[in-house]
């Protein structure tokens, strides 16, 4: 069973491994303590103390705060209950004109605004671009991912929360 040191996993998270190193990690069976080690590294990276239960998204974590599971940005902004769509707390920019779409794409290589628009979701505090949606105009905001944290801990990790 493979096992990787902390330094290697840190470089994995930062995207600094070269392909020959990365390829082996992808191809090998997962090391059993990977999740624990990754959580440890992530917890060291953030400036706050709430316990990370699950990394949810780039910059976002589900953390335990006063017994509640909430979504928190690495900048410290708290999005609230993880069962609610964190995107509804974001600042949002809609690119729904040819001019706004063509800032990002050369001629004919972006969507046509009558067919699709690009929505940008920013953290209201640090303004990092957390998500883009490309959807037909009028489409409800997509809820990306609702993890079953209890099942994951109890049945997969065989740990209590």
């Amino acid at each position, binding site marked *: 069973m493979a096992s990787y040191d902390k330094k290697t996993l840190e470089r994995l998270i930062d995207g600094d491994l070269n392909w020959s190193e990365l390829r082996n990690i992808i191809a090998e069976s997962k090391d059993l303590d990977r999740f624990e080690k990754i959580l440890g590294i992530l917890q060291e990276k953030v400036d706050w103390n709430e316990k990370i239960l699950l990394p949810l*998204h*780039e*910059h976002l974590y589900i953390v335990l705060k006063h017994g509640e599971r909430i979504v928190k940005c690495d900048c410290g902004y708290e999005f609230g209950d993880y069962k609610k769509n964190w*995107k*509804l*707390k*974001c*600042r*949002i*920019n*809609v690119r729904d004109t040819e001019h706004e779409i063509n*800032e*990002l*794409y*050369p*001629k*004919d*290589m*972006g*969507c*046509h605004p*009558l*067919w*699709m628009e*690009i*929505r*940008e979701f*920013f953290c209201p505090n640090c*303004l*990092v*671009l*957390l*998500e*883009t*949606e*490309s*959807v*037909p*105009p*009028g489409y*409800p*905001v*997509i809820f990306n991912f609702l993890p079953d944290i209890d099942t994951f801990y109890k049945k997969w990790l065989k740990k209590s929360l």
Partner: protein
Amino acid sequence: MFINFFGARDGLAFHGSGGMHGGYPHATGYRLIAKNTNMEEIIRNQDPYPIADADPNNGDFEKLLVADIIRKSHCSIYPVNLKNYDLVHFALSGGPGYGDPIERSLAAVKQDLDDEIYTSEIVENVYGVKVKYNEAKKEWIIDKEATSECRRNMIKRREEESMTFDEFWEYERTKIIENNLSEHVTRMYSESIEHSTKWKNIFYEFWKLDEDFKMEGI
């Protein structure tokens, strides 16, 4: 000799619902056909001819050929007749982006420029990276100071130009209730509503539409 050429790809809409974790969706396709070209003469004179379309805003086809050039942004085309010396170009795109583009490493952006993946204009607008071309060395030089400033300005612009969710909700809902959607999008929604009560409920609940609300023209 004549050949029949046709093909289909995503043209006016992105494939899939976006990039990942803040990345933008990958580019859509388009069709480029050059007919009645002067390729015979170009080949005879050993002149340069277009082998790619690196910057569609400033196309090599238009610069290097005398021809009837057709660019179609909808990427599916019915069979067209092509004859000797006609040219066809269609670009395959890579995958969608991952992560906030302004966090991308400068080395990776420089590599893409040197490989002619992106134009300097796109690199500035998407990644917030300011560059200059060194003609003598034939390579792109990144201006680190200007890049930091550009990225700071982009963050400022994100704050100024974005809406709160409530503002977004009003803005987007208006498109539906005032029937500002195009015919095909209206039709997509109304057919989805007809086919699935579950989806109808999601749609009506999200936009707080009255039970008797109907998409226009249905």
